[in-house]
């Protein structure tokens, strides 16, 4: 084989696949939504987004990260719409001029899941604050997201309400995984820890083992999702019209109905509660 044949063969092999593929649809009409792992891991987007795309021709590209990172990315203008679940942080984002207007979309609730042995004796409780206090008292392992996500923020709020200083217990019985909800469930169930999770992720989670819901039904476990357009005045690249179209659809009748219709094993995962006029 001469030099030329070799080069041609090597080059063909290396780039052949790259060039042979159809270029990714860069000219397509699309928006980028910064959102959270719970909405993606639960499979909600898989049913919601195709419906919206069918109706409008706008493709929705979801970047699913923790709420903290999603807000940060939106602040950088890397996305057109923000759909997360940490109301206080969302309102701050709007107040800082990062977004235009925040709308309620849907809610679900958090639950505390735990091992069947129930070392803290909290199983069946409806009082999450008292249960957390019991977990702290018994020093039963607790796996926290530890990633500044919406769930993590909600969890920290509950610990404060319980008067427990988790920072002092970090690395002891309080274990921060610093990762997403699913990853934390994988880790937590592996170490026999209690875990605060949103119900949607828990229902759709495929590696539950013998874990069960220990604490549920407390009003304080309410988990509200909000949606907002990234401020096009601050970030001119934001696709304001298409982004707003998605928000209008999501908070309008069709989107709300689609959210309510999404079920796994007969259980509804998210409950629409947009306050915008439904037509």
């Amino acid at each position, binding site marked *: *084989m*001469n*030099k030329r044949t*070799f080069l041609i*063969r*090597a*080059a063909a*092999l*290396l*780039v052949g*696949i*790259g060039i042979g*593929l159809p270029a*990714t649809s*860069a000219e397509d009409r699309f928006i*980028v939504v910064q959102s959270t*792992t719970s909405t*993606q*891991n639960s499979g909600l987007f*898989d049913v919601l987004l195709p419906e919206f795309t069918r109706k409008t021709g706008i493709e929705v*590209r*979801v*970047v*699913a990260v923790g709420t903290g990172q999603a807000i940060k*990315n939106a*602040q*950088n*203008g*890397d996305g057109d719409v923000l759909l997360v679940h940490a109301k206080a942080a969302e309102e701050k984002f709007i107040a800082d001029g990062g977004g235009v207007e925040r709308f309620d979309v849907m809610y679900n609730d958090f639950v505390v899941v735990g091992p069947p042995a129930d070392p803290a004796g909290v199983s069946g409780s409806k009082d999450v604050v008292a249960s957390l206090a019991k977990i702290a008292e018994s020093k039963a392992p607790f796996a926290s997201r530890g990633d500044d996500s919406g769930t993590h923020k909600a969890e920290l709020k509950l610990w404060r309400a319980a008067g427990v200083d988790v920072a002092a217990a970090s690395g002891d019985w309080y274990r921060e995984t610093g*990762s*997403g*909800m*699913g*990853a934390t*469930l*994988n880790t937590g169930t592996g170490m026999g820890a209690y875990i605060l999770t949103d119900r949607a992720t828990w229902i*759709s*989670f*495929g*590696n*539950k083992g013998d874990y069960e819901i220990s604490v549920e039904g407390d009003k304080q476990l309410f988990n509200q999702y909000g949606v907002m357009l990234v401020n096009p005045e601050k*970030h001119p*690249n934001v696709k304001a019209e298409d982004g707003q179209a998605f928000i209008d659809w999501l908070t309008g009748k069709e989107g709300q109905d689609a959210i309510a219709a999404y079920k796994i094993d007969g259980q509804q995962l998210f409950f629409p509660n947009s306050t915008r006029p439904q037509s």
Partner: protein
Amino acid sequence: MATGLILSGNAELWTIVLLSLQVSLTAVVFAALIGMPAGAALAVGRFPGKRALVVLINALMGLPPVVVGLTVYLLLSNSGPLGVLQLLYTPTAMIIAQVVLVTPIIAALTRQVIEDLDAEYSEQLRSFGVSRLASVPTLLWDGRTSLLTALLAGFGRAIAEVGAVIIVGGNINHVTRVMTTTIALETSKGNLALALALGAILILIAIAVNGALGLIGTASGRAAHA
């Protein structure tokens, strides 16, 4: 269960596999175009600070993907200096990140190969009146079989990393979702069997690519000695 999942491989899976190959192979090509001449020049060049540069390039082989991803994200973000290019969350962004990761590996391994060849042939080349830098193409050509290993090492790094591509690509379904980010996603969903099956496919792909490049290497080696 895992085998069944592989055998029932659907169109969705193929899109992901092909995108993985597209991104990583393209990255390796660009990294080779930069890294091989650079590594060879570093091998034959005589200049102050050369030893330090060699140490640096060798150290950069261990660049943490997540740090590369973060850096590329900050550059390509709409708030970053290259935001106007609108490359964030595209396969191009993933290629850029992998080029950054792979180039030092290819450059460092190339330098080693070429330095050895240079030690062997430099006197001969000099006697033909070939200058140090002008001897680079000849040396690269002569070391092509060994340099395949550099390519494969670079490809191995690119196809296996998740830290960089998940940050700059965003793991967007049908757009920037590749094998490793899919495995991470399925693991986080608790679908461990599926994640493992995807891992097995990833290894098969790596074997196939290595096998194909290995065949070229053997063929060219035989041709060279004929």
